[in-house]
């Protein structure tokens, strides 16, 4: 059970516990006798309850008075967090998780861009960290991303909002290892089509969390931006420009081995 899940005391109640516990402790220090000892024990329990937000009594009674996540509808029409009571909503609501917004303008018609993106199996062709996306059943897809050291990160997602030639919104299924939600909007622009991606994700703890953090890098905006740049390049030019595999005079051992047989004096 992680720290957040242990919290079962509301914020105001936690402050009151701290104040009362502090007062009892001060009283105990002053008395230094048997009733004082009892006050010290009660004060310590209240201080613990206030500091950690966890109350064993509440837990025994099965009560939780913790505050609910406050996140309201953000970004109208983006489709994020439309599924009110899923755990994805709880984990990404308010200012929890990491939020990314990036946009790019592509000199192609909306419908062409929408169609390409809506076929999620196309996404790995321009999203560097995605290994594959496969459709499970209507509206549910299975995502596999490349993690560090050959590790794979997988999750299932579901389309929660879809307006043709306008918006696609998705979020991870309840119980997924990863909480993520996102949307892509398509808008007409004098320079072509403006494509805007909103993404949220909440890296869980442990190895998986570290792997996910690595995938999105230290600057998640930059990762999304590069993916969108590749989308634009692919849609406008039919390919993603590269220099990988071109010759150079770099003297790494590998380069030398490749060079030797081909060199013509």
């Amino acid at each position, binding site marked *: 059970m992680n720290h957040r899940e242990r919290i079962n005391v509301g914020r105001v109640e936690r402050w009151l516990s701290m104040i009362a516990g502090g007062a009892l402790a001060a009283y105990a220090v002053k008395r230094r006798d048997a009733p004082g000892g009892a006050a010290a024990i009660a004060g310590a329990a209240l201080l613990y309850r206030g500091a950690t937000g966890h109350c064993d009594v509440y837990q025994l009674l099965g009560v939780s008075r913790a505050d609910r996540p406050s996140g309201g509808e953000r970004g109208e029409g983006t489709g994020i967090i439309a599924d009110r009571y899923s755990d994805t909503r709880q984990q990404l609501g308010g200012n929890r998780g990491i939020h990314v917004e990036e946009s790019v303008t592509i*000199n192609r018609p909306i419908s062409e861009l929408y169609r390409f993106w809506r076929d999620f199996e196309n996404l790995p062709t321009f999203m560097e960290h995605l290994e594959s996306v496969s459709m499970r059943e209507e509206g549910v897809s299975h995502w596999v991303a490349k993690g560090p050291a050959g590790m794979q990160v997988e999750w299932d997602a579901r389309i929660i909002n879809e307006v043709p030639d306008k918006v696609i919104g998705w979020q991870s299924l309840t119980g997924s290892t990863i909480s993520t939600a996102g949307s892509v909007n398509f808008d007409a622009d004098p320079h072509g089509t403006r494509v805007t991606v909103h993404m949220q994700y909440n890296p869980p703890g442990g190895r998986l969390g570290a792997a996910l953090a690595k995938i999105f890098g230290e600057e998640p905006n*930059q990762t999304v931006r590069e993916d969108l740049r590749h989308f634009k390049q692919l849609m*406008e*030019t039919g*390919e993603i*420009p590269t220099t990988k595999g071109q*010759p*150079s005079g770099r003297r790494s051992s590998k*380069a030398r081995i490749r060079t030797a047989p081909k*060199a013509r004096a």
Partner: protein
Amino acid sequence: MKAVCWEGRGDVRVEHVPDPSILNARDAIVRITSTAICGSDLHLYDGFIPTMEAGDILGHEFMGVVEDIGHGVTNLKRGDRVVVPFPIACGRCFFCTHDLYSCCDNSNPNAWMAEKFYGYSASGLFGYSHMLGGYAGGQAEYARVPFADIGPFKVPDHLSDDQVLFLTDIFPTGFMAAENCNIQPGDVIAVWGCGPVGQFAIRSALLLGAGRVIAIDTVAERLAMATAGGAETLDSMDPDVFYKLRNMTGGIGPDACIDAVGLEAHGPHIDFVYDKVKTMTFLATDRISALRQAIHSCRKGGTVSVPGVYGGFLDKLPYGAAMNKGLTMKTGQTHVHKYLPRLLRYIENGDIDPSFVVTHRVSIDRAPEMYRTFRDKQDGCIKVVMQPY
């Protein structure tokens, strides 16, 4: 194949490297017949351009014969003789479709690097730092040309390599510099720098209707070439350049000023020493005495056109003079693709023969020596053309 590689500041070598291959559908491989050293290669040679890596293949002025094409290239075939523009342009983005080829949105795989320096990235260039694409250049036996359906431009067989090679960069660069001056019949145009770009700017300004061109440099053979091209000349080391320009124009100043010098300017005034000390101690990135003088000398309401290369943040730029005199500033990497048909017509009509600028023709094996000769302006060197075979 043989290729000229940048190995560090002041160090280029001819190395044996693997042959290039088709990497994308719209690529072509060109077997190079002629390749030139550009004045802007000297900025790389002298270490002024960031994000170079040892082993990078240099060269962005090259032409040759199409050797191989990817399946996405339908307008070229093996054996076509082509010149290759130095900016790489996709032909499909907003910028390319508005004739702003050197601003192509898609051709720089390392756009993120340029965005850190410049906000937005210009196009990728051949052999001109990783920030501007990291593409292997054309001072080699072969080059891979991306977006080959847009860049390579077929040239007729009756014109020699020397006559068409400079369509790749310096002729259109000098021409765009002149076009940016918005020349009206009879205008007086002052040109700082009589290197190859300056030479083409002089001739282009006259082609576009300028009445007089005043060329400013200090190297005798360059001034002589400018005179041959129809310009009057001034010595750039003369402390009275501003005063003389004013008197030559009846107290008005030139209608437009072209800075074809760029970030390694020399000058007779204290500001040159200031720039030199600051750039040597990494407190400034560019030496700008030519640009300062161009802004200072230009007439009110005139135009300052800058084909010269600048890299970073300019110190003591007299922007107050530009603002108060109501100057128009125009600059940019050249949109080569846009100018090719028109400039080829000038060559075919005999209006200009670009081969006038060539002073050295050598085998590519002599590249290291030629970089030095060109940089130090020794041996009357103005333009070096190399043959890879």
